[in-house]
């Protein structure tokens, strides 16, 4: 007995059947990634706790953030095992947002520059959060 997808072949008997997309991974991987996420979160927190500054701070923050995001998407959201077409369809658009991020960063810098140039002494020392 098949439904419209043609996938659940043995469903009439109430058996799991040849379930194509079932997450039948052993539980261990979830605990390992879970632990890894905790470690990365602690790392992120320590960046602030130890008052790292400047490029080291920003690099560490970004690296920990991207690692955590990558692990959540790949393992918890099962992307690692999905069809490549779906992976690309989902991952590429947010990556393209990086273009918007770059444009906005340029614009923000430019806005700061023009404010400093045209709006007088109050704006002469552009505030940069260290």
């Amino acid at each position, binding site marked *: 007995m*098949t*439904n*419209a*997808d*043609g*996938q659940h072949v043995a469903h009439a008997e*109430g058996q*799991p059947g040849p*379930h*194509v*997309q*079932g*997450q*039948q*991974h052993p*539980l261990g991987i*979830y*605990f390992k990634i*879970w632990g890894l*996420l*905790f470690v990365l*979160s602690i790392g*992120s*927190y320590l*960046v*602030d*706790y130890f008052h790292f500054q400047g490029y080291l701070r920003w690099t560490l*923050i*970004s690296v920990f*953030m991207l690692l*955590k*995001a990558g692990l*959540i998407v790949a393992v*918890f*959201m099962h992307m690692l095992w*999905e*069809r*490549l*077409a*779906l992976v*690309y*369809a*989902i991952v590429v*658009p*947010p990556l393209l*947002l990086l273009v*918007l*991020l770059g444009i*906005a*960063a340029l*614009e*923000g*810098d430019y*806005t*700061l520059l023009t404010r400093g140039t045209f*709006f007088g002494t109050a*704006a002469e020392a*552009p*505030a940069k*959060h260290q």
Partner: protein
Amino acid sequence: MTPPAATTTAGSLPQPEGLQSIVADLSSDQRAFKNVPWGKPMMWIFLVSDTFIFGSFLISYMTVRMSTTVPWPNPSEVFSLTLFGKTVPLLLIAIMTFVLISSSGTMALAVNFGYRRDRAKTVLFLLLTAALGETFVGMQAFEWTKLILEGVRPWANPWGAAQFGSSFFMITGFHGTHVTIGVIFLVIVAIKVLRGDLDKERPGFLTGRKGNYEIVEIMGLYWHFVDLVWVFIFAFFYLW
């Protein structure tokens, strides 16, 4: 009206690998994303749109913060708690992060147990996820209360650039709303699992389609997305 039994194109054509599989999936008059139950790509597409929403918030926050001539409030100081006379920076935020990551873990377990058709454990982990999510929202509400009492408004705050308040409330407000909606849906899915709706493939309230354990995974996708957004907010707003 019963839909005609569709043949799976997955079986009839040889499947290329790698990048060619992307072309093969998307080309010609056929269903893309073969062997993927339709609910999953739909949730993913919704999540991509939600990514754009939060992306636009975070990118505009970045633009505003980069171009402010008034110093931005220091998040370590703003979001610190004083415990036993000692000021601990970002303590509440760290706890919130751990809570949400734990909820992601319990959600992954719930999905796994759902596919094993272990109803009791699925319900347990779904409700545990909901409880952790609600705890997160409670802590966020406490954070909001504390800041509002200290004088943070969308148009001004005692510490620095005026845009801090509006950025904070907008970004965390949208995120907290998403978490709350997720909690509600988690409870709904948990009730469906508990009642055995998924084993009996009973149609849902809003649909004529049969329920099955994929909805637990689809719910999981939404919940992991909520955690994902928090990872970015935590890094960009609180830590940076």
